[in-house]
Every structure is written in C-alpha cells, then in structure tokens.
C-alpha cells in the first residue's frame, strides 16, 4: 500500500530537513509499538501525529474526488482506516499511563523542564486536570471527613509508579555495547552487548535510554 502517499510528499521535520510521508508513518508505527510495550511514558511524537492527521485529511479529500466504483477508493479507505487505528491506539496507550501514574508523570515532567518535555500540550493540560479531579474527589468523599493528620492526598499517590524493572521484548536496531544489567543479592552487575538485529527479553530499566534515542525497538 506504499503509494497511498506519493513518494513526492515532503514535510519539514522542524530542522528544515524534508521527510517523506512514508517516513512519518514509519516513525509513528515504531513509536506506537514502543509506547504499547513500555512500562513508562515515552517522549511524545505529537508533531508526527499532527503531520499524519493533516495527510489523512488531504487523502480523504483526494479519495472523495475519485469515482465511486473506482476500486482504488476501497484500497485507500482501508489504508486510511489502518493509519487512524495506529494513531488512536498510540494516543490511548499514552493516556492510560497518564491516568494511572498522573502525579509521578507530572513530577518527572517538571524535573525535565519545558524544553525537554515528554507530554504534548494537550496531554499536559489533561494530566493536570485529571490529578485535580482525583484530588478533589478524594477530598470531597473521604479526606475532609477524617481527623486532620490524615487528610493529606499527595502521599497516597507515591505508590502509583511504573515498574521499570518489568520485562520487555526488544530488537536492537544497531549494535549496542555495554548495557549494564544490575545484579541482585545473589549476583553481580553484568555487562552485555546487543548485536544489530538481535532480539532479547530483559528488564526495561537498563535499556530505557536506548528506546528513547531509537537504537532499540520494543516488539
């Protein structure tokens, strides 16, 4: 279905470098799988989402110009439905994590600072609104009715954190040297090298940064 977008569709990725629609879609698909399998929230690809949605709209307009019984209509409609699914599924995974670990995610976001944010603008507003909603509800229903020393809300949120030690399936997109796997009480730290295209199961934590910079793909 390569030619749903022509090869000559170019976008700018912000640094002035033009990239093709195919490349945008591929980036989104990788981001979607990573987000689906990653226990923690990954940096947002909101720019790519936006770009893809513009492209979908344009495509829909073009498809509607074709004759009704042109068989290409069906093919293009199908491809557009698949792209829409990828986008909504990607954004749903993110929203679920934001709702689950709201306080933690907002705290991490504040530590990183605005120039290095992981949340899109819309997500950030949603996260703040959602935490306020939870706090307000807990206060109204419970906290304002209990003795004063037990009225704190924030400490109850401390346990809502992603488990960075949960295991993930992954593929190395390039050679990755010197991944340090922490030992436990029975074993020492260990260093492993991952070969290009090799697949592994291991804890998320030691490879977190490689997922974020794109050298490792979760599968």
């Amino acid at each position, binding site marked *: 279905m390569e030619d749903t977008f022509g090869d000559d569709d170019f976008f700018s990725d912000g640094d002035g470098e033009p990239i093709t629609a195919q490349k945008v879609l591929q980036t989104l698909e990788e981001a979607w799988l990573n987000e689906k399998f990653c226990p923690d929230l990954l940096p947002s690809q909101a720019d790519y*989402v*936006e770009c893809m*949605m*513009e492209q979908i*709209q344009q495509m829909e307009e073009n498809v509607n110009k074709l004759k009704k019984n042109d068989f290409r209509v*069906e093919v293009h*409609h*199908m491809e557009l*439905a*698949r792209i*829409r*699914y990828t*986008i*909504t*599924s990607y*954004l*749903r995974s993110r*929203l679920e994590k934001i*709702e689950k670990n709201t306080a933690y995610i907002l705290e991490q976001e504040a530590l990183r600072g605005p120039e290095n944010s992981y949340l*899109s*603008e*819309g*997500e950030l*507003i*949603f996260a703040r*609104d*959602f935490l306020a*909603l*939870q706090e307000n*509800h*807990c206060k*109204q*229903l*419970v*906290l304002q*009715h*209990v*003795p004063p*020393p*037990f009225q704190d809300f924030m400490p*109850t949120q401390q346990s809502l954190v992603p488990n960075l030690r949960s295991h993930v399936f992954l593929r190395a997109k390039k050679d990755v040297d010197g991944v340090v796997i922490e030992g436990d009480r029975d074993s020492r730290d260990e260093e492993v090298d991952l070969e290009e295209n090799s697949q592994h199961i291991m804890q998320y934590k030691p490879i977190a940064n490689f997922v974020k910079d794109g050298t490792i793909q979760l599968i």
Partner: protein
Amino acid sequence: MFCEKSLKLIKELDRSQEAMPPFDDDGVRQVFEEMRGLYDQNVAAANDTTADPDGTAISGIAIRHAALERNKRCLLAYAYNRILRVRNMRWQFGPILPHDIKANFNEPEVQWFNNYNICVARYFKSIGAHGLDLTADVKPPKSLYVEVRSLTDYGKLELDNGEVVLLKKHSTHLMSRAQCEPLITQGVLEQISN
C-alpha cells in the same frame, strides 16, 4: 476488631468485579465514626502523661494510629476503585450513561463523571487541527464493510454515503466498519460472523 467496617467496603467492591454497586453511604459513615473515636482516644492518651508513668501508652497509640491509616487506605481505595469503574464506563458506554447505572452513583461521582467528560473532550479536541475521538477505532480494521444485525428499534441512521437506513430490531445491514463500530460497542448492533 479494628477496621472491620472498612474491610467490608473493600470486599463488597471485590465481589462485584466490574459492576457498580450502590454507594454504601452508611458503611462509609461508620468508618468515619470509628476513625474519630480512635483519634480522640489517641489525643487523650498522648495528653494524659500522668496516667502513664511507665510509658506503655505509646504502644496503644501506635496500634490505633495503624488502624487509622488502614481505615484511610480502605476508604480511599473504595473511592478510587469506584471512580476507575466510572472511568471505564465513559470509554465503553460513551458520554451518556444508562439511567439505572447512574442511579448507583452518589452525587460526587456524578460530578466526577461530568468533569471527566469535559477533560476528555477538551483533550480530544486538542489533537491535530480538527480534533480526534480516541474512543473510536479501538480494533485494528480487517475489512471496510461488515454485516450487522440490529438489536433494538434504533430508528433512522444516515450512512456516510448519504443513504438513510432504518434500524429495526432483527433487521440486517451491510455498513462501513467505521460507522457501525461505536453502535456495536454500545450494544445497538451486533456483528454477524461469516
């Protein structure tokens, strides 16, 4: 025994699984009362140092303090897990809930649902230039059209291509997947397997 009433709330929720039992106002109020009692006893024990020359009062205080924390945890877990179900209902039923389900909410839960609706709608609107409904497209598409049977007398429905169909109970239709998905999710239509 301490905290039996708050444990009852948790067991009630555990038993009902995904469903929404009526909010147990009375049970919750009883836990508040137990907490107030425990707290008053602790304040009295801590201030009455004359009655405690050997310092053993601290053990009682510690135990009652643990019971207070436990009660708080159970109450908040009760509130939180109910809200989690309310949240899932927004994603499964859509922004309007059946009356008999809403009847089991208490007032703050109705408010929470309405406010959550607003948050979600605002977020959906912020995606892209024209917004995107994330409650749609929940399954990967396999075909563009599916055969469906109507489960209720739903009435007229305008299809994407402008055609209008009448959804009557037991009537069958061939419809675009995108359009019938929300209606299947809400239980208006069912997909006919081939």
